[in-house]
């Protein structure tokens, strides 16, 4: 196999690494941010990373199913966002607060 230049020859690996980076960033966001909404956004970021991975596999494996999955994931992500935001709204309505550090009553 001839030596391939990783800068010029873009392959599956590139997309996957990109997805991994995005996934990690999303994860870092979930771990570090305090705002509930931002947390939800970070999760969306993770799901987007997953989507990239699916589509990349789909292309490089010549398998259309990956795209179907992206389709499903997107829908569910939207649904999750809806639920999450509804939850956030209901919490905000009640507590006027979306900083998750406020919600530490359950512990021990």
């Amino acid at each position, binding site marked *: 196999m001839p030596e391939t230049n990783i800068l010029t020859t873009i392959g599956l690996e590139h997309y996957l690494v990109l997805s991994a980076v995005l996934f990690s960033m999303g994860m870092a966001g*979930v771990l570090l941010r305090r705002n509930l909404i931002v947390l939800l956004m970070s999760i969306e970021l993770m799901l987007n990373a997953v989507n990239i991975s699916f589509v990349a596999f789909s292309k490089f494996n010549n398998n259309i199913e990956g795209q179907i999955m992206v389709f499903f994931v997107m829908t569910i992500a939207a649904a999750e966002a809806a639920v999450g935001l509804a939850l956030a709204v209901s919490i905000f309505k009640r507590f006027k607060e979306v900083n998750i550090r406020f919600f*530490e*009553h359950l512990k021990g």
Partner: protein
Amino acid sequence: MSHQALIAILLLSPFVGFLLNGLRYRSQNYVLAGSIATGAVFVSFICSVMLMMDLIAAPADQRRLTANFFEWIAVGGFKVNAGFVVDQISSIMILIITGVGSLIHLFSIGYMHHDKGVTKYFAYLNLFVFNMLILVLGDSLLTMFVGWEGVGLCSYLLIGFWFSDAAKAAAGMKAFITNRVGDAAFIIGMFILFFSFGTLNMYELNALAPTTVEASWLGAATLGTLMLFIGATGKSAQVPLYVWLPDAMAGPTPVSALIHAATMVTAGVYMIVRLNPMFVAAPNTMMIVAIVGAITAVMAATIGLTQYDIKKILAYSTVSQLGYMFLAVGVGAFGAGMMHLMTHAFFKALMFLGSGSVIHAMEGEQDTRLMGGLKKYLPITHFTFLMGWLAIIGFPLFSGFFSKDEILWQSFASPRGSVFLWVAGAIGATLTAFYMTRLMALTFWGKSRVPKEVHPHESPVIMTIPLIVLAILSVVGGFIGVPHLIGEYLGHIPNYWAEWLAPVIKTLPEAAAPHTATQEWALMTTSVTLALISAFVAYRIYTSGKGTNEAIAKAFGPVYNVVNNKYFVDEAYFGGIINPLVKQSQNLWMYIDVNFIDKTTHVISDMTKGAGSLARSFQTGNMQQYAMYIGLGVVVVLTFVLMR
């Protein structure tokens, strides 16, 4: 009547007496209680006599009446029957037990009439007789052991009869536990014999006893008999387990007479005589027996010198006399041992009952320092006591003389005897004469030191009759076994005793060194002379009032102190064994149970709880922390999966 039935009646009569009295324990009708009890024992006595007559009627080699009632224990090869046997040895014992026993029961009616627990007392006494009969009649060591422990139990109950006095209750306990020490060894001895010879039946054991003597200390017969002997030291109050007997005087005086003088305490001697072939096969054991006997004889006698409690003196005297018996059986003079057992039963029961009469007269006072000159108040008691005194100091022709002299002679002349044993015996005899005379002098002779409020009076007839009977026996009892030498001299009186016992006594296998009649005469004269001199000295000292504590203490100094404190044996036991044991048990409990085992349990449970708190502390309530756990978990799992 068949002898089975006789034996059954013999055994059960006291038991029935026990039940009759025991079930109406609240009653204070001392006449009824006493009649039942005495009657029960007397029935036994009749049976004994009938059995004895049967025995005498039988040919010499068939003098054995057995009664097997049922199979008691049968496990594997181990079978023990509730089997009883009357033979030459046990027949003597049952006669002593039931005979002397009846007299003591009779005496008790008078002695105990004022006691609230009189019915209970008679019940216990009957129970004792029952157990004692089992002890002597049992055909195997285990049946013997039943009685052995049973009499211990009754002794416990009777010593602690006046239980509200803590000291008396403690004395009972002490007796039982000390006996238990011996019993434990007895049990081990039974095991050794059983596993070596395959049976506990004493006849079979005797038949199986090694024919050649065991030189080794580890031989089955030696170890077995040694263990049995340790058992005997407990029951028969020998060094080092004699300590309970003086304390046992806490019980009613007739009890002391019956149990702690005449019958129970001689069980050890009886056991050795019973198993004499086995002991003969174990010369090492016999040596130990003789030495222990000699030491006990002397040591108890020395302690007896300093005591003031009338019953304590008699108690130490009993210990000392028991020492003689062991000395006898230890040198192979089984007949002499048995003989002394019997004569001792007569004169010591007599003296105990006499002392009971004195105490009765003194309204419970036992201290001889507060007596003196009682002769005139208690003539019958004094006279009978005198007979006992003469017997015990070995005044010639009194019963004690024959038996004691025979023992002393045998301890010198027997192939297993030695001059040291004789010397010890002679010293013992001398001391005995001294302290018994001292007792007589302090109690009956000299000036009266009786407190004014006490008015001594002679005991009622019911109490003096037994005294008289026993006095007679003490005087003439010895003639049944007149030693050959004296018998020849007195006019060919045969030694019935030796003849009677001969079939069941195994002669020592060693050839006896030749001894001349002159030697025997010389030794006899020496010991008797010594005893008489010492009796005279004691008489002089104590009737003159010089024999006060202080005077003697001054004369003998520290020696007196040691002897007066009974060689500090009790103190040594308490300080060296019992107190440390209790203390260490406390420590065991506190350190092992509470502070180690329980603490370990608690530490484990605390650690679990600590782990729980730790687990809880991770549960901070912070959602991101949880997310971190998830992330961390994923990372760790992935790393692990990838790396290993």
